[in-house]
């Protein structure tokens, strides 16, 4: 408890010191230093809990009506804290390089660092707070600081709009959350999560269901599940790269943490909750993946892939929920371990990808893939980082994304004796996950292939050298994490297994006895995967080195790319991102709305002509349509019905009769 308060104080003091009238470089240094100290303090506290130590509990008396402020750090919170703070620290280090151009100017960089400290602070409050008000306070601090971090470039109207959009969305989520907490407080009569859990376990029924739905909406908005995702691509495209990385990889994982926490508080969730969670997450994964296909803004693309990945993690939590309702320890272990590992893996590779995108922006001043090309030659380290992250995000071996998806597949195709319909449904989700994987491979091939390979497409874009060292170091560390967690997946499992143990401990006695070897089996499976992944990686490296050695003996000739006999090939004739995705995207017209703006060549001597293809968010479009012209479209629909038409009158009467008869029968009223 003392260490926790010390960490909070260090972060607060650091934030305050960042605001002092000092040179910008010093402010940045203070920010990074305070983050380092806080990370060390929290790490010292978290490590014992993760490896099986006791749950840390602390209390602090406070005035009425807040009551005693309870802090409780169990394995679940410890798991999230264990990587959230170090990653925020790396984000602050990256910010030092990303904000380099501002360091010598009048711009107050200290505010930015103070806000990064507040983000770290919010993690401590959310993941360790047992009092609902501490939890909500942390939640709100994270939301507000993320908003202020997003609008770094506030002079740009688009950035302000994106920030405002985020602010509104996150507060709508907060309202749902507050509503759920109000219901829980009225019933439990106390603020701590334990009392909430006690009430939830005793009272399954419509009120618990309502609370679950409210919480799911709130957390869904926080973690940008479809259809609550529309704020996300805007915010991620507008924010500085490290802020996008932290939001997508770390801050919004709080929504998933809270989801798991509250699901576990219910004791035994109803079966429909698991199915709803799976359906909701599968939709997110599918739609998020489809949206990545059409994007031309690299950061927007990565933003959509967050929606996809929270969906994939959510599928895992859904499997775990079903396991809890069916008293099936294997599914509980696989579902929650797979989901939590995916959360961790996603944090690693998503931050890596955003950092690589930020380096591209820093060097070329654009993230529009249609204007980029050939960056791999000029920025080899950034390209390598993006490729590693891209392979991981497509869930391909030998990197970490594959491990968590493998675990999820082993839950979906568990081969156990489940109800018939359930087995088919889970297989269908597995097939959908396979499709999502292939789609994300498509879009990452497209992003990497168009932006980093080939030749530069736009002569106005200059890429001279790599981005600053401050940006490359965090990128390298994340890449290292991606590789290590892929080759030694037991490390990832080690971090989550105590947390999964909490869920297993909630199962009734008989099922608990069966759960003894479950985590051990899982560890054996993922270690085998890691071994094979490592072998593959090593084999590729060996062959590559051998080939380079042979190539040194007889150097290869170089010649122009085969152009089918056409000699005057130029860079503009390369395949573009839009053409790469058009064949696939055409089949999903309802979701991937393509817009084209063009100026056709005119006259006998056309001066200039252009065509811009982009993909807009269909959900957001419809949302805005309803807000703006909802009344108009409703009356337009009603105008299509003619009240004086006898057929319409008859049909309406019939429908009314059927509805009344149905209600009467359902109520079982006067007929009996």
């Amino acid at each position, binding site marked *: 408890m003392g260490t926790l308060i010390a960490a909070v104080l260090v972060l607060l003091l650091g934030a305050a010191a960042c605001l002092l009238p000092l040179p910008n470089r010093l402010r940045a240094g203070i920010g990074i230093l305070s983050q380092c100290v806080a990370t060390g303090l929290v790490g010292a506290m978290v490590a014992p809990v993760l490896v099986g130590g006791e749950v840390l509990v602390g209390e602090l008396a406070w005035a009425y009506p807040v009551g005693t402020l309870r802090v409780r750090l169990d394995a679940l919170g410890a798991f999230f804290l264990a990587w959230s703070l170090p990653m925020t620290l790396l984000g602050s280090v990256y910010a030092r390089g990303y904000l380099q151009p501002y360091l010598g100017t009048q711009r107050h960089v200290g505010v930015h660092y103070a806000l990064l400290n507040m983000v770290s602070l919010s993690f401590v409050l959310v993941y360790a707070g047992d009092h609902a008000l501490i939890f909500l306070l942390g939640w709100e601090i994270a939301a507000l600081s993320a908003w202020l971090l997003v609008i770094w470039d506030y002079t740009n109207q688009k950035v302000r709009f994106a920030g405002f959009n985020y602010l509104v969305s996150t507060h709508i989520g907060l309202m749902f959350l507050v509503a759920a907490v109000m219901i829980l407080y009225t019933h439990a009569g106390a603020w701590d999560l334990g009392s909430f859990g006690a009430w939830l376990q005793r009272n399954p029924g419509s009120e618990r269901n309502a609370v679950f739905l409210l919480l799911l909406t709130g957390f869904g908005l926080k973690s940008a599940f479809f259809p609550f995702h529309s704020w996300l691509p805007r915010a991620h495209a507008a924010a500085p790269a490290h802020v996008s990385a932290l939001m997508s990889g770390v801050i919004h994982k709080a929504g998933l943490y809270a989801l798991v926490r509250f699901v576990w508080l219910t004791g035994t969730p109803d079966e429909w909750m698991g199915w709803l969670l799976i359906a909701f997450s599968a939709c997110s994964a599918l739609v998020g993946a489809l949206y990545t296909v059409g994007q031309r803004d690299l950061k927007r693309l990565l933003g959509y892939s967050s929606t996809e990945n929270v969906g994939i993690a959510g599928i895992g939590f859904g499997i775990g929920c079903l396991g809890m309702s069916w008293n099936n320890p294997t599914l509980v272990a696989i579902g929650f371990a797979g989901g939590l590992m995916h959360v961790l893996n996603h944090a690693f590779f998503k931050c890596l990808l955003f950092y690589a995108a930020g380096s591209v922006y820093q060097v070329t001043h654009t993230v529009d893939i249609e204007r980029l090309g050939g960056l791999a030659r000029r920025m080899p380290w950034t390209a390598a980082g993006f490729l590693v992250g891209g392979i991981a995000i497509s869930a391909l071996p030998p990197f970490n994304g594959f491990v968590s998806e493998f675990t999820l597949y*082993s839950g979906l195709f568990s081969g156990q004796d489940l109800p018939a319909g359930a087995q088919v449904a889970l297989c269908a989700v597995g097939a959908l996950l396979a*499709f999502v994987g292939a789609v994300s491979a498509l879009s990452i091939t497209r992003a990497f*292939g168009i932006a980093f390979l*080939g030749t530069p497409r736009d002569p106005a874009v200059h890429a001279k050298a790599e981005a600053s060292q401050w940006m490359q170091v965090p990128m390298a560390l994340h890449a290292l994490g991606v590789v290590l967690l892929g080759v030694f997946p037991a490390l990832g499992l080690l971090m989550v297994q105590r947390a999964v143990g909490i869920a297993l401990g909630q199962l009734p006695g008989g099922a608990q006895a069966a759960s003894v070897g479950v985590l051990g089996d899982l560890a054996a499976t993922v270690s085998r995967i890691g071994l094979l992944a490592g072998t593959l990686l090593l084999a590729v490296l060996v062959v590559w080195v051998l080939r380079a050695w042979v190539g040194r003996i007889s150097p290869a000739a170089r010649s122009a790319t085969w152009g089918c006999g056409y000699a005057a090939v130029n860079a503009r004739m390369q395949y573009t991102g839009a053409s790469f995705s*058009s064949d696939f995207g055409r089949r999903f017209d309802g979701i991937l709305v393509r817009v084209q703006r063009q100026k056709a060549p005119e006259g006998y001597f056309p001066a200039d002509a252009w065509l811009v293809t982009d993909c807009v968010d269909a959900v957001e479009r419809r949302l805005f349509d309803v807000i703006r012209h909802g009344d108009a479209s409703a009356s337009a629909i009603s105008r299509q019905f003619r009240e004086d038409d006898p057929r319409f009158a008859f049909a309406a009467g019939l429908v009314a009769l059927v509805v009344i008869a149905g209600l009467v029968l359902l109520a079982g009223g006067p007929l009996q």
Partner: protein
Amino acid sequence: MSANLVALAVVHVLMALAMPILLVGVVNRTKARWGGRTGPVLLQSGWDLLRLLRKQPVYSLVATPLFRAGAYVVLLASALGALIAPMLGAYAPLHFAHDFVLFAYTLGLARLFLMLSALDVGSAFEGMGAAREASFSAFAEPALFLLIGCLGIATGQTSFALLVGKLHASPVFAWLVVPVVAVLFILLQSEASRVPVDDPLTHLELTMVHEVMVLDHSGPELAAMQFAGSLKLSTYAGLIAALLNPFSPLDEPVAATIAALLLMGAVAVAIGCVESLTARLRLRRVPRYLLLASLLASLCLAAASAWGR
């Protein structure tokens, strides 16, 4: 027993090395017969590979180191896939629970590097091929997993070799075998770039899928790409053979091996006949053809869940 297993592993590896060359030979001979010619010798593609290995490669001026490395990633990943996929029946050298995920995803890794190598040279034609490959594979991917779901319900197994090899023991084998083989055959045509999804003999860059992606490869890298392509063909042919193989490789290894060889040969003849008798589909129609596989597989899944438990 363990000597038996080692022998089986050796046979599997030898077949994985030899069958890609032989099967391509059989397909080409079959096509030649339909065309009234004798056709090349069976080992022709092997000689071609040797010839390529001796040649000095020419790289595009645009290509990065990824281009050269990509070819070997494709080769090694396909090889790992071939070690997981059963060929002789209910046996594969590498087998553990849910290894089919690793199979599908190593082939995915191979595909990713194939597409990236294509994009690396900055040619519009190769980009076109990569886009087609990406889109077709996305449509084909669910079919494999639906099929595995169906086999899982019918057999109660979780490793690829047992899922495929143990279908014999299932009461629904008799009527499940035809649609399952059909799905695998469609997947083979898609993964190994055969007619009607892709035509390996097409003469125009604009209409190619696989061939256009390796246009700029030469020498040993082209050999690696070509062998990886044929390896995928023989892997899928091996899957079909393992599904139909009436002998158990653990009890009757010799009979199972001979049966596997004959069945794979028969699959190659079937590929050749299809290629001789039908034209490839229009590119826009291909996703529909691939969705047919998913549809068939989901019907199998529903049926297996209703009657096969």
